């Protein structure tokens, strides 16, 4: 049987100052990693929650984003009549949309941030099943009225209900706030397609078409026929895959965060190592005594390794607690795809916390291994004579 864990726990309590300082160092490292992971997780959730698997986004061939795409009304008329598109009554479920960016001062950037403005038809609103009005009403056709996503309402002081936004050829009244669940729609502003395209002199230079397929089996066939039709010159893909591809916006941030965390982890591992070396030196007599009582070298090694793991585990838990207040806090990140800000919530999920604690335990194992090995290798008499 191994040396009791209570021995390690009580030693950590006895050396409480050292324990707290070392655990805090590990906690901060874990907190940095978790903050980055929570951010990326939130961003991923926002994109993965966007789009309907039955819906197909059609852009100009070669376009990588709606912003750089151009679709004419003529193409839209051709698309509407294609087989496999769902209908509501006589009306095909197809939405012609125009996407552009406008500049609004935000809480983070008073000089202004790019925000996605989407000109849309009533059918486009209907096709977004998860979209609902949180406050106010929908915009009216032919009016300079907009409905803002809930993240926009929260992060842009000028975009509150009843306020007027200046873009295009005049002032636009915010008449409603929409809630798209956790999707990217929350970071967009919706207005009447014809009014917006007119204000931006893009009456026939629109951005994309959203189509709904009759069923899941029709989706690939419809995509293939759209992509194969040279006359149309369009690129079709599922709405879901379009948004999922945008998750890459957070990749650079993720790499940077993980890189910083690894650098910090090296420092924290050395701190844990230093603490454990000091513990081994201070408790040399105890190590000698345990050996005389019959505990093997392996028992001694495991005991000190366990102590290091307990110390780092404590740091990991504290790191999780430190980052917990970030959960659900709204933040924004500039997307290289839409050239606008995408707002989303930090998501500190249980899976992320497990990663944090595991990361801390790895730091503890790395930091504790050599001191534990040194403790186990001490000759009994040498250990007993050390003070």
């Amino acid at each position: 049987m191994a040396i009791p864990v209570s021995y390690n726990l009580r030693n950590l309590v006895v050396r409480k100052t050292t324990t707290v300082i070392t655990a805090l160092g590990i906690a901060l490292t874990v907190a940095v990693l978790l903050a980055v992971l929570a951010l990326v997780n939130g961003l991923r959730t926002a994109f993965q929650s966007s789009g309907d698997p039955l819906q197909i986004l059609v852009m100009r061939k070669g376009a990588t984003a709606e912003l750089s795409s151009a679709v004419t009304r003529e193409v839209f008329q051709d698309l509407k009549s294609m087989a496999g598109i769902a209908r509501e009554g006589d009306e095909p479920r197809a939405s012609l949309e125009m996407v552009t960016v406008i500049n609004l001062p935000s809480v983070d950037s008073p000089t202004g941030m790019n925000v996605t403005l989407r000109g849309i038809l009533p059918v486009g609103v209907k096709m977004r099943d998860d979209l609902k009005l949180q406050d106010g009403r929908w915009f009216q056709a032919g009016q300079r009225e907009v409905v803002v996503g809930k993240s926009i309402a929260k992060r842009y002081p000028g975009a509150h209900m009843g306020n007027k936004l200046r873009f295009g050829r005049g002032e636009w009244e915010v008449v409603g706030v929409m809630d798209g669940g956790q999707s990217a729609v929350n970071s967009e502003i919706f207005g009447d397609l014809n009014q917006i395209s007119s204000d931006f002199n893009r009456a026939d230079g629109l951005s994309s078409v959203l189509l709904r397929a009759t069923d899941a089996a029709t989706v690939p066939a419809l995509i293939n026929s759209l992509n194969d039709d040279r006359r149309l010159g369009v690129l079709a893909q599922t709405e879901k895959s379009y948004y999922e591809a945008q998750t890459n916006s957070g990749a650079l941030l993720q790499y940077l965060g993980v890189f910083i965390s690894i650098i910090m982890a090296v420092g924290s591992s050395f701190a844990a190592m230093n603490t454990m070396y000091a513990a081994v030196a201070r408790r040399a007599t105890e190590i000698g005594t345990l050996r005389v009582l019959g505990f093997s070298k392996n028992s001694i090694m495991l005991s000190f390794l366990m102590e290091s793991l307990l110390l780092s585990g404590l740091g990991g838990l504290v790191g999780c607690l430190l980052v917990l207040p970030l959960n659900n806090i709204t933040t924004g990140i500039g997307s290289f795809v839409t050239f606008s800000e995408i707002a989303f919530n930090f998501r500190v999920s249980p899976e992320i916390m497990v990663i944090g604690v595991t990361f801390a335990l790895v730091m503890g194992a790395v930091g504790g291994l050599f001191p534990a090995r040194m403790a186990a290798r001490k000759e009994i008499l040498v250990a007993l004579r050390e003070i």
Partner: protein
Amino acid sequence: MAETVIQTKQLQKEFIRDEFHVVALKDVDITISRGEFVALMGPSGSGKSTLLHLIAAMDRPSGGEILVLGENLRTLSDRAIAHWRNAHIGFVFQSFNLIPVLSAVENVELPLKLTNLKKKERMEHAETALNLVGLGDRMHHLPRQLSGGQEQRVAIARAIVTDPDLILADEPTGNLDATSAQDVLTLLSRLNKEFGKTIVMVTHDPHAAHFATKSRHLEKGELLPEGQVPVDWTVPAKA
């Protein structure tokens, strides 16, 4: 004829210290039988503690033979020695060497962790050992809450809790006042007389040696013939 518990032949221990070759033990032949209480005496540096450490397999001899409880310690692996020590040896240190963060009863229970006993049985054994040394009312005290004498009695309880064949004590009264030393020596003597424990005690205190059934003297690494004391041996003043 009593069973031989310890037997050494031509036992040697040499080591290098600060580039000097030191002979700690030279051709030591000693036989100790079951039930004996032997005091190993001699001045500092005479090799008495070295001999005790070799008997406890805490160190390896440079030459000669050492048989303890019929086991040739030179042939055992580190792991086997650890197991053997736990099963057969109880060791009492001069500085008590209790684990400071564990209570008296937890300290005594510690060697039993290496046995197959269940927690309840371990605690029963530990409590019995503590009662035997007269500390039944101090079970949950930490070492720092005990006097030196009490600490040493806890250490003796820890040494006997596994019911070892051999108790080895290295200057067990060296850090104690006269009264506490008397209590500890009386306890060791009782363990020898009432429970038949074989005890080897290193001491330089002739008063302590009086509690033993036999005294053997070492001088400059050599074991003197039985009954012989070093030429310049002076009786240290009693505390």
